[in-house]
């Protein structure tokens, strides 16, 4: 599979980040069960926390412009050690793809098709991801602008329609829980939700204007934070203390929309949007896994400038249609997603306890080590130059 350089504009990149984040932001139940009516504040502090890993990524990309994470690893640590470290990332991306597929499968299972085996749901879902990736990840990135707008508009419409059933006093009193809960909430949102922006550091060579990567990442995360604050406040104002006991607060909150007996049962719109957002999210995750796999195991870099194919469209088509590991990775995601958790209960327990540490290892620890090594390497090479 060839990845075309310079094919995505910074805005498209930003909107695909928003779509990617939205998929998880809409399902923020496990944070709300920890920090209750203050969870919307955790979205903001979580965003601030995630600026730390973001800073590391931007610093790495500044040192190695137009290179993605795997290439940076190879450049910093050399081919063998770099690839060994990259294997950890590959594991992380694949795990995320499987976890998200599992989440989606169980969402459809419990709310829409209770009697259908989860494997069938996941199979069709991954079929859609596979098809869209086969047509090129570029198209998903282009389409994400539209999807992000539709999602944001749906969020606003839902919030307006539910406005008459909200109770403002549910949000008070502010910050009355134990401080360690706020730390847990901040780290959870920062690591599990926001930190996953790491995935996009794999796609940076696709950007038309490589200098704007940091800006796109930052604003993508900022807009996602804003919408997650709106969604969380809406959920808290409509459900009050119920918000901490229901499985999917957003779903339950939208279920309550009832305007003049005409606008009712809007949760189906939410469900459809969620499925579309998850297609974008999992497609990006699978693509990133495929890319990492190709880069680790192939001799040549699969990333080529778009111009390379200008004179031979047939060659271009051939390469786009024959991604070497795409089918393999999709199949791997399929089986991995089926065995990753026994039940959604196990999943949510993991989400609240282990997930932040699991994510932080890949999102902060490994990139930080790479950055330190990169800086060290630079200093050493400079000294060598001076000595020479």
């Amino acid at each position: 599979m060839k990845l075309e350089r310079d094919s995505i504009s910074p805005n498209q990149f930003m909107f695909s980040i928003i779509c990617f984040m939205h998929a998880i932001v809409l399902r923020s139940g496990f944070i709300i069960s920890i920090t209750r009516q203050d969870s919307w504040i955790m979205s903001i502090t979580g965003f601030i926390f995630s600026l730390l890993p973001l800073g590391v990524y931007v610093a790495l990309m500044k040192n190695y412009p137009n290179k993605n994470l795997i290439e940076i690893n190879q450049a910093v640590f050399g081919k063998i050690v770099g690839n060994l470290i990259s294997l950890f990332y590959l594991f992380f991306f694949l795990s995320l793809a499987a976890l998200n597929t599992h989440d989606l499968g169980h969402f459809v299972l419990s709310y829409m098709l209770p009697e259908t085996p989860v494997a069938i749901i996941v199979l069709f879902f991954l079929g859609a991801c596979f098809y869209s990736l086969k047509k090129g990840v570029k198209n998903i990135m282009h389409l994400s602008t539209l999807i992000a707008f539709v999602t944001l508009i749906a969020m606003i419409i839902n919030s307006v329609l539910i406005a008459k059933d909200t109770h403002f006093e549910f949000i008070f009193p502010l910050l009355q829980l134990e401080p360690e809960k706020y730390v847990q909430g901040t780290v959870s949102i920062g690591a599990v939700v926001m930190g996953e922006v790491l995935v996009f550091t794999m796609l940076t060579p696709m950007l038309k204007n490589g200098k704007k990567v940091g800006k796109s990442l930052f604003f993508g995360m900022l807009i996602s934070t804003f919408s997650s604050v709106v969604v969380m406040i809406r959920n808290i104002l409509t459900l009050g203390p119920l918000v901490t006991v229901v499985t999917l607060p957003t779903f339950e909150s939208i279920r309550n929309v009832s305007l003049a007996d005409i606008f009712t049962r809007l949760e189906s719109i939410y469900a459809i949007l969620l499925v579309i957002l998850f297609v974008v999210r999992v497609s990006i995750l699978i693509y990133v896994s495929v890319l990492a796999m190709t880069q680790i195991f192939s001799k040549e870099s699969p990333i080529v400038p778009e111009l390379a194919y200008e004179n031979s469209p047939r060659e271009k088509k051939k390469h786009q249609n024959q991604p070497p590991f795409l089918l393999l990775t999709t199949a791997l995601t399929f089986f991995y997603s089926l065995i990753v958790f026994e039940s959604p209960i196990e999943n949510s327990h993991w989400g609240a306890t282990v997930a932040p540490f699991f994510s932080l290892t890949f999102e902060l620890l490994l990139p930080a080590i790479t950055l330190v090594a990169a800086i060290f390497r630079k200093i050493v090479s400079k000294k060598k130059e001076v000595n020479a």
Partner: protein
Amino acid sequence: MKKLACSYRIKRFYQTGTKNRYMKLFLLSFSLVLCLSSCWSQRDISSLSIVIGTALDATDNPEELSLTAQVVKPTEIGSNSGGESSSGGGQAYVNITQSANSMLPSVRAMTHSQSRKLYFAHNEILIFSDELAKTNILDPMDPFTRDYETRMDVQMMISRGKAAEILDQNNELEKLPALYISGMIKNQKYNSETVIVTLRDFLIATLSESAAPIAPIIEIFEEDDGNKLLRLDGTAVFQDGKMIGELDQKETKGLLFVLNQSSAGVNTLETPAGQVVLETLSTKTKLVPVLAEDGNIRMKVQIKENVILQSNETREDMTTLENIKMLEELLAETTRASIDAAVKKAHLLSADIFKFGEAIYIKYPKIWKEMKDQWDVKFSEVGVDVEIDTHVHASGGLTKPILPGGYS
């Protein structure tokens, strides 16, 4: 010639890979047919019993409860009213009753005797008998909240006597008693003498650290001529998942004032000159906890009430400034009396139906943390100061009453 063209087309079809495309299209359409018909989790409407009302009763066996589901008979809906349709059925509904040790087992047990599976997504009302409510209301409520088929916006109420009998009370206006009751509940906002409580409201109050959940009471009322009618009368008060007492209509009116849910209603005032009726246009209530110097907390209830003169049954002109002032004072007195009655009953029951605890938690979180463990006791000690600001807005289409002989 025609044959030639045809064979050419077939040849082209095979040559240019169109066949491949058609194959793809065919496979795609076929898989869409398979997916979109959702055969796997299909539920045909002909195999479902659509439930529009549910009643839960206690049984002689304390371990069991009895569930009555009102199911629509679609064939009777379109027929003539009055139950004497040509299709011979009569009633447009069937009430199915089943006893079991819990809610879900009784729903499943119905499949032993029914041809269709109960479908709760369109359930409008949920009635608990007072007998059941006095022992335990939360356990049977759990499946109604947990299951995705049921919705939390169903109207909740408590029945005096058997809940199943309420669902069997025919009326002349509606074919389905459950829809009649749900319409009745929606009408209550015009009198502000009955609380309107959905399952969601009840659960939110149950989950609160301080508030006592409430629900309206429904009963069968017999008129002098023996005619039986349904009537909403009073409010049931809960504590720890059990019904612990009732408020009458006047106390409920006071409660709605404090809860800022009194939207409309009529107030009949006895003036020295005769009877005057005022209609409430809007009411706004503010609860302000005040920390007194002795460290105790008092609740200040500030009410703003806007009314219009709706009926003047006296011979006096009630639109003079003095009379308007007199009416405003009389109205404030009536409102105060209903609030006092509600506060007295709530203190008697030691149940925070007014959500005072939540107001204190918001304004004085530290003090609340100290007092929340003994809130049952402390609530009865909280003094209530009521400030009422009434305002007669207009006198309707008349300025003076209609006097025989006129004003010459």
